[in-house]
């Protein structure tokens, strides 16, 4: 489990991340996204349609005990992680779409997460001692949304400070995951050694299968390949640190330790899987761009630029 101090520190870092996320947005970005709501709706369908169901299904199929099941379902119900923006950028995806999906899913989380959590934990037959009260989720989210708004206002008033905040926020996104790993893993290496393969399968699977399903749903809904790859990353990458915060707020002692296992492991592995997927996407994007250039004039030997 995390000490009081570590939890506070985590909360602080999350606020900085949200400050950065707010600083990357203007109200115009939202208005533009809502002019063509399809992209946003596809994103929300993936985020809150596919992922919670996937978390639930994996927990059931792998016959997880309640503590693990809650952790996995909670992970599935989380909004998109801010690191998805960094990966979208490096995979040569549609950065604006990624930022939009992360922001909107975080805003919607206020309502969506408690509802979906209650639904799926109920369906999984998980006892009330493992219930996550809606107020806890709301509490954490509101605390995080205030910095978002401060970020947006700052960006409008002073672009230099806003851009600096945006940069610090992105670095913090990666740093926070490293922080979690460094504080948690050494203390729990015995536990990790004893962790069954099914848990590893679940945390990696949540990410990878989520990405695959997100990609196919996006393609099914007629999004082009580049947008679909961005949506895939956005779907699979959940906000791990947010789940950790909610767990530390709700549970204590060994219960906390047990429920924390999956969010922390997920956070660790998602960075690894995302890196590989991003590299693959990047290569595919380059190949597609080259093919597009060559297709432009058929009869002439074209040199790509």
């Amino acid at each position, binding site marked *: 489990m995390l000490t009081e101090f570590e939890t506070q520190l985590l909360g602080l870092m999350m606020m900085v991340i949200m400050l950065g996320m707010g600083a990357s947005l*203007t109200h*115009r970005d939202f*208005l*533009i996204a809502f*002019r063509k709501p399809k992209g946003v709706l596809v994103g929300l369908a993936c985020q809150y349609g596919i992922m919670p169901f996937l978390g639930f299904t994996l927990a059931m199929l792998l016959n997880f005990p309640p503590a693990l099941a809650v952790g996995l379902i909670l992970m599935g119900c989380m909004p998109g992680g801010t690191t998805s923006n960094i990966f979208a950028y490096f995979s040569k995806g549609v950065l604006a779409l990624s930022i939009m999906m992360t922001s909107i899913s975080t805003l919607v989380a206020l309502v969506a997460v408690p509802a979906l959590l209650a639904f799926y934990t109920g369906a999984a037959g998980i006892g009330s001692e493992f219930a996550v009260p809606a107020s806890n989720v709301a509490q954490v989210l509101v605390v995080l949304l205030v910095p978002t708004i401060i970020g947006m206002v700052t*960006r409008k008033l002073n*672009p*230099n400070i*806003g*851009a*600096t905040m*945006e*940069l610090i926020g992105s670095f913090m996104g990666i740093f926070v995951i490293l922080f979690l790993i460094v504080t948690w893993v050494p203390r729990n290496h015995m536990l990790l050694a004893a962790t069954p393969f099914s848990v590893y399968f679940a945390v990696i699977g949540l990410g990878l299968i989520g990405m695959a399903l997100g990609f196919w749903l996006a393609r099914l809904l007629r999004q082009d390949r580049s947008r679909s790859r961005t949506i895939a990353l956005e779907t699979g990458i959940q906000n791990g640190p947010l789940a950790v915060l909610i767990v530390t707020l709700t549970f204590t002692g060994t219960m906390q330790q047990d429920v924390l296992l999956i969010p922390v492991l997920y956070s660790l592995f998602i960075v690894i899987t995302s890196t590989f997927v991003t590299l693959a996407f990047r290569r595919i994007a380059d190949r597609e761009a080259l093919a597009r250039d060559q297709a432009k*004039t058929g*009869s*002439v*030997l*074209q*040199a790509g*630029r």
Partner: protein
Amino acid sequence: MQHPPADTPRPWAAVYREVGIVPELPPLSHPNLGAFIHDACTRWARESKAKAAFTCVVPNGMNGSLGFAQVDELSDYFAAYLREVLGLHVGDRVAVQMPNGLSYPVVVFGILKAGCVLVNTNPLYTPAEMVHQYKDAGVKALVLIDMFADKLPSVLAMTTVKHVVLAGVPEFFPTIPKLIIRGVQKVWAQVLPPVTVPHTRLAAALAQGRAALQKAGGRVHAQNYWKAIQPHELALLQYTGGTTGVSKGAMISHSNLLHNVQQMLAMGGTHMEPGKECVLTALPIYHIFAFTANLLGFLAIGAQNILIPSPRPVQNLQRAVENYPITWMTGVNTLYNGLLNEEWFVAYPPRKLKASIAGGTSLHSAVAKRWREVTQTPIAEGYGLTETSPVVSFNPLHGEPRLGSIGIPAPGTDIRLVGEDGQDVSAGQAGEIYVRGPQVMQGYWHQPAETAEVLRDGWLATGDVAEMDEKGFMHIVDRKKDMILVSGFNVYPNEIEDVIAQMDAVLEVAVVGTPDEKTGEAVRAYVVHNPEHEGALQADAVIAHCRKFLAPYKVPKSIVIREELPKTAVGKVLRKNLKAEVKAEWQAQLKASLQH
């Protein structure tokens, strides 16, 4: 050439009256640019409503600004650095090779105040192109952006350049954004190469200039640098290929630039409120269009100048458009078209925009129409050449826009249309545009033959063929010179052919322009394989070879390998025939696409 009539008719005088353009230029308010700059900065520091004189905005929104008084002071220091510390004299050439940024006005104003001659240079030039230009101009000092310092060793060895000053993109930015941008450039993007030659950083140069000025009696002493400079003296050597393609320096005087600023303000004055404008400078200042219009023209009316270091991709302009109350824009067709394809621009066009000018290349009527619809403001196409500082003609901002026209001549300009026989053509016929006016250059630097080819009795032959209607509006019909316009940049087939011909694998080459959706025109090279050469001729190899010696906009977009090239009886390659082939090919493509 026949002796031209002394009093050339100006049928466009009626249009001037209609739209409120003053037909006669006032006498020059200043004898030289130093006096003009100092006066403008002093006046506008007091009176302008602008938040700053120059603001540089990088893609993520980080920005830095300089006020009018600051620019005046810093350019005084740079002038002192050139005259006192480096010991340069009036008329010595100083080259500037940087993208748009806060350093640009400081350095350029300093050079002009010092009475030295500015040589604007494209920062993307390869060492070969730099050597040619600097040797020809006899450049003594160079101000270079630090990103390209790795080109210096090869260049310095072969030219007369004795002093190098380096400036960075975030020069004059507040400390933290500056550190962040430099950090990103150095560590992340790795675009700051180590510098291996003796050099001075701009900040140090300014400090030295300041010290020298204080020793000489304070800032007021700086005025001695430009006090005696006469209007006819050289201010600028602007390199261009002209009509033949050989790169040469157009000699632009103080009078040329000051008059052209007046002409530009006369044409756009109806939509300009001195002290209240905010102009977006996405076009590079080293190109004569933005140099005269944005840098000098909008300084004259105390506008805030938003400088964009890298306008590609066009998304880089988003923060600038969002954060500043842009009232004026200058651009080329490629830029306007690019912006119209961006969702963020179309959804939220700049609310305070009053008017836009398009130059450099012809503005497509579809783009003009869409721009007017989206921004609800006029966009006027203009025409000019490096050799005319540059503005020759302009569409008025009021009234019905004439599609495809380059407008009416600017005040003080005379136009003749001359036929193949050297005589003026009859009314309504097409002829080569000859220009006479205070904006016409003094000649080409050290090229008397080339100068005599185009400049006779004060008339400049432009190499562009046009028709003029009864009201004085002109339409370009053809281009006499074999020139390709890539996004408003002049590209000369001769230069490209010379480079490609150096390849062992190439026997012969001919370069022509092809239509291009994005850039207006693109470069295509037809090459013939040299049978003596062992290996095959690869298109990729040709491109790679070009990249080594030519700036990116000159590199061919397509290569066609042929068995032979069409030639005259004497063996001269017929570019005309290849151009006709291209035309047929494009028409066939158009037909095919329409059928689907």
